[in-house]
């Protein structure tokens, strides 16, 4: 780690007491052979204590990098955190913390659940030992106490006969059971923030339901804040209060889950929701978002979604959109449709979206097989 331990000059004021995580103007980029990849480009959000926040986006949108930056798990270099980026955690600016203090925070105050439980568990230690190791390190307790704590955690996450399971190795457990172990490990030191990066993507649907219910129950019981990263809008709808939609490294829409998923206000979010197959859309074509996510080396100059956007006009190619207010309750959307002068276009787009949601597009006329990038 090359960062200094002194508080950087020019830091903003600390956030209010009930805010646990406050990310301000975060930029994370990677230096690679072909240039610089701006993985996360100037995002800001905050997460209150005990609150839940979902980050949604396709692969490559920068949602995992955001989580890793908060945990400070990225290697610097090749990663680079832009000047002016601030991450406040529980009243402290953590980007300027020395690694030693950060290590104390990590596991103790903030914990992360990864997508693939098999790779986040060490295959040569029993699961009980792996949980106990962390407990011993952070809570400064005896061997016996840490082992008891490990068994207790396994019981908490619904693993039957935890005493026996604690003595087993990861390969002896099923996928769902392993993810429970990882959750138990993350919770063992009672963190204030739990980051779950695609916690159920590798699991079957019935096991996914188990894990989601477990996360929900535990989050309610322990009062930890939850930052859930996923590409599945269904999981988001079940789990969180507020949502951030990311596209090509930027936040494109933000709002409460009930409003954002029912009345999306940014064409990308509209497209994502329209493309979910539902029973109403049977017999019709899904209204897919055309094209593919742009390469980070060739981002469109203004609006990054413009080449794929069905509602674009000239302004979209010329002026980069800001996060404009888009409705009640702090709704934000990065789209020129929310400028006052575009209100007619906005109404038309919303009407089109509602139409697509009701029926899907009919399978009539010439085949529409766009797939060329």
């Amino acid at each position, binding site marked *: 780690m090359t960062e200094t331990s002194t508080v950087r000059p020019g830091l903003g004021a600390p956030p209010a007491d009930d805010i646990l995580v406050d990310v301000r103007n975060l930029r994370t980029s990677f230096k690679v052979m072909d240039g610089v990849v701006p993985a996360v480009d100037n995002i800001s959000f905050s997460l209150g204590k005990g609150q839940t926040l979902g980050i949604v986006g396709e692969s490559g949108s920068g949602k995992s990098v955001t989580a890793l930056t908060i945990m400070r798990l990225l290697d610097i270099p090749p990663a680079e955190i832009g000047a002016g980026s601030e991450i406040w955690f529980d009243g402290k600016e953590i980007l300027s913390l020395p690694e030693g203090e950060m290590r104390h925070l990590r596991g103790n105050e903030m914990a992360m659940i990864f997508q693939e439980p098999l790779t986040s568990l060490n295959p040569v230690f029993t699961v009980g030992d792996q949980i106990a190791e962390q407990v011993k390190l952070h809570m400064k307790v005896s061997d016996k106490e840490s082992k008891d704590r490990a068994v207790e955690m396994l019981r908490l996450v619904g693993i039957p006969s935890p005493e026996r399971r604690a003595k087993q190795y990861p390969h002896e457990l099923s996928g769902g059971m392993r993810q429970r172990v990882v959750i138990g490990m993350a919770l063992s030191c009672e963190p204030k923030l739990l980051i779950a990066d695609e916690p159920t993507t590798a699991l079957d649907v019935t096991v996914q339901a188990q894990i989601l219910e*477990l996360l929900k129950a535990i989050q309610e019981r322990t009062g930890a804040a939850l930052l859930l990263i996923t590409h599945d809008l269904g999981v988001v709808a079940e789990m969180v209060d507020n949502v951030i939609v990311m596209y090509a490294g930027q936040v494109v829409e933000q709002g409460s889950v009930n409003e954002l998923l029912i009345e999306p206000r940014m064409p990308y979010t509209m497209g994502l929701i329209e493309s979910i197959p539902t029973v109403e859309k049977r017999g019709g074509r899904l209204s897919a978002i055309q094209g*593919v996510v742009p390469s980070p080396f060739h981002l469109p100059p203004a609006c990054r979604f413009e080449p794929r956007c069905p509602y674009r006009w000239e302004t979209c190619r010329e002026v980069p959109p800001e996060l404009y207010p888009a409705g009640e309750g702090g709704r934000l959307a990065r789209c020129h449709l929310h400028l006052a002068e575009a209100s007619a276009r906005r109404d038309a787009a919303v009407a089109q979206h509602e139409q697509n949601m009701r029926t899907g597009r009919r399978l009539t006329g010439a*085949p529409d097989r766009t797939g060329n990038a």
Partner: protein
Amino acid sequence: MTTTIGAAPVAEPEIHHRLRRRPPNSIRNGRALLMTIAGFGITALFIVFLGVLIGIKGAAGALPMVAVVTAPLAIVLWAIVRYTRARTKLAFLLAFGIAVVLSLALGFLIVTMSRLLSDPNSIFFAQLILSVPFVVAVAAAWQLGRGVAWFDGTKEKPLKAEESGARPINAPLTVAATATPTALAAAAADTVTSPASPVVTSIVGADGPVATVPAVVQPLLVVQGLKKHFPIYGGVLRKQIGTVYAVDGVDFEIMPGETFSLVGESGCGKTTLGRTVIQLTPSTDGRVVFDGYELADVDPDDMRPLRRRMQIIFQDPFGSLNPRMPVSDIIGEGLLSQGLNDRKARDKRVEDALELVGLRREYSRRYPHEFSGGQRQRIGVARALALGPDFIVADEPVSALDVSIQSQVLNLLLDLKRDLNLTYLFISHNLSVVQYFSDRVGVMYLGKIAEIGSVEQLYANPRHPYTVALLSAIPDADPRRRKKRLVLKGDVPSPAAPPSGCRFHTRCWLRERLGNPENCVTIEPELVQFGEEAGHRVACHWADEISQATVAQAEAETPAIVAAAVDDE
């Protein structure tokens, strides 16, 4: 599709073409060995010829002799292979006898001649060349001898591509060129009300009515009691210590023009079933009838023309494309193996296929790494389409893709189905996609079908507790429909040791509510017709007990933290 296709009860499939049986392995190995000898002869000839070229002393002397031995030997061996395919015992014995006698006589002749010429080098060459094929010939004879019982005197001819109903391989691959008998039947299926009642439908082609067919629509694919078991080997001696019952007795049928889906969790055998249906892995037991052809246990040579009609799209767009091949070779490989040897014609067809899936013609020169995930999956679709199939097994074609790309590929599959009159066997774990995409659905659990029915029947009125639980577990993106879910206990048991009786009883919420009735553990429920709804079949003893009320009650009673497994140890 709103017709009542697939509603008829399972009837005995009509077999109107018979294919040759798959020869036993001993015969296949014996044949392979004979081909080895022939190959050896040719190689030897080449080596000696090289020897002559670089001027090894004596090589020139051996050349005519090697030629004399290998040329007739190769011809006779070819004849044997040819006749073992003809599969009459007499022809086989005759051909093999001639081959052995001839090669021994020739060997004797050569050695004698070499002695006469007293050229030590040619003796060495002659002995070297003759000894190896002799050893291999003995092995081949032993192998063929083991399989002799197989020569049952059946005289079926090999299936020709023209007879298989497949489209000509050199015909242009366009939307118009799809009027195969099955396609006509599929078009007819749209107009009939019941597959059991014969309706005369006239098919209108581009030039007016082209045919009047009595449309008793037969299923395109009938699967009966299909089983696929994999042995587990263990110990020092690699003895079989167990069996994975991947697919264990499955029945269903697919009508032409229909999309039939298989859903289930990983490990339930849905992918194995898809692969076994098109004979990518031979089945252990049971029948697969495709358009009147009995497929299980047929000669691979007879399978080849039928392969044009049944293709597969694989799940992983990264693993299923060879990174060392350009797209033209990836797609063209199937065409080549079907005898389209002309490079230009092949490339044209490859490009046609690319265009059909919405990619540019010039992409055929590129390599897989130059494409995004969605484009790769399109290449996978193009590969399946290049042979002009009418039946496609789509094995999780969209699960590896991002949501926005997923819908593009689903749209493409729907368009192709409409334009090319395709029939799909769609395999997926995503119940929302299946509901949107298919006409009928089979829910699989541990190698068996738990429930089968039309999408409407299954999603509105599920009657198997497993189907109910699966449907309840789908996270809905609409927060207005947020509800408490019915969460199953534990994981899917191992298919190597399936539970007794009903395979689902270890996780069944309904059984718990009913006070653990005995018959769930002791009697395996059969897949039987449920109530009045045609085509809705359920494998549950207590299907009548399921109602909206019981499901709602079970959902409400789900504990906050469900145990990870049923603890029976």
